[in-house]
């Protein structure tokens, strides 16, 4: 079945440093989504990427979808303490891979930001 790997598992940064998490799928995706989960909370949808090579920005967050639609990245510029949490990618398969309305979540990257 479809697998989505995410690295790193943990990242500890000083406030103001940049942060990047990477996501790789074993199969081609029809789209990829990113979620953020604050400590003790539930996952919250951030964004969806659909097109090959797509890049989207939300303030200090930049999301990319690879040309082959099998990988993605989230980059945060100048981290702040409000960025603390776990970031998950989630891929939806294609019709060929039985995508449907199911998502396969990555294992997540836990971000800690120190002052």
């Amino acid at each position, binding site marked *: 079945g479809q697998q989505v790997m*995410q690295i790193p598992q943990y990242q500890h940064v000083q406030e103001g440093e940049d942060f990047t998490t990477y996501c790789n799928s074993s199969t081609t995706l029809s789209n990829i*989504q990113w979620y953020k989960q604050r400590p003790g909370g*539930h*996952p*919250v949808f951030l964004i969806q990427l659909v097109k090959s090579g797509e890049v989207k920005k939300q303030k200090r967050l930049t999301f990319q979808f690879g040309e082959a639609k099998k990988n993605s990245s989230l980059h945060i510029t100048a981290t702040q303490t409000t960025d603390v949490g776990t970031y998950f990618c989630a891929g939806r398969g294609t019709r060929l891979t039985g995508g449907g*309305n199911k998502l396969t*979540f990555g*294992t997540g990257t836990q971000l800690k930001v120190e002052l």
Partner: protein
Amino acid sequence: DAGITQSPRHKVTETGTPVTLRCHQTENHRYMYWYRQDPGHGLRLIHYSYGVKDTDKGEVSDGYSVSRSKTEDFLLTLESATSSQTSVYFCAITPTPRESYNEQFFGPGTRLTVL
């Protein structure tokens, strides 16, 4: 958040006892999902539903059953709880399963401990 509630929010039970978790939504969304979240594994799909009495298995369905007799309620049952089912359980909905846009909204979660 999309009118999703989960009950109970916390439960401690003993090995071998049956447990039922409830997910309730107020907005008549068609697609509902049950996930479990464990450290190092991210979110893993247990079962999902695409309508009343229409359900299907996810990647970790062994030991779990579901029922959906009404649009608003999706029940997850552990027939005979085991310690390996200690986890945080999240319910999610997809509000509008369009062809290429299917973000998920999550409930607050249920923390289940099986002793």
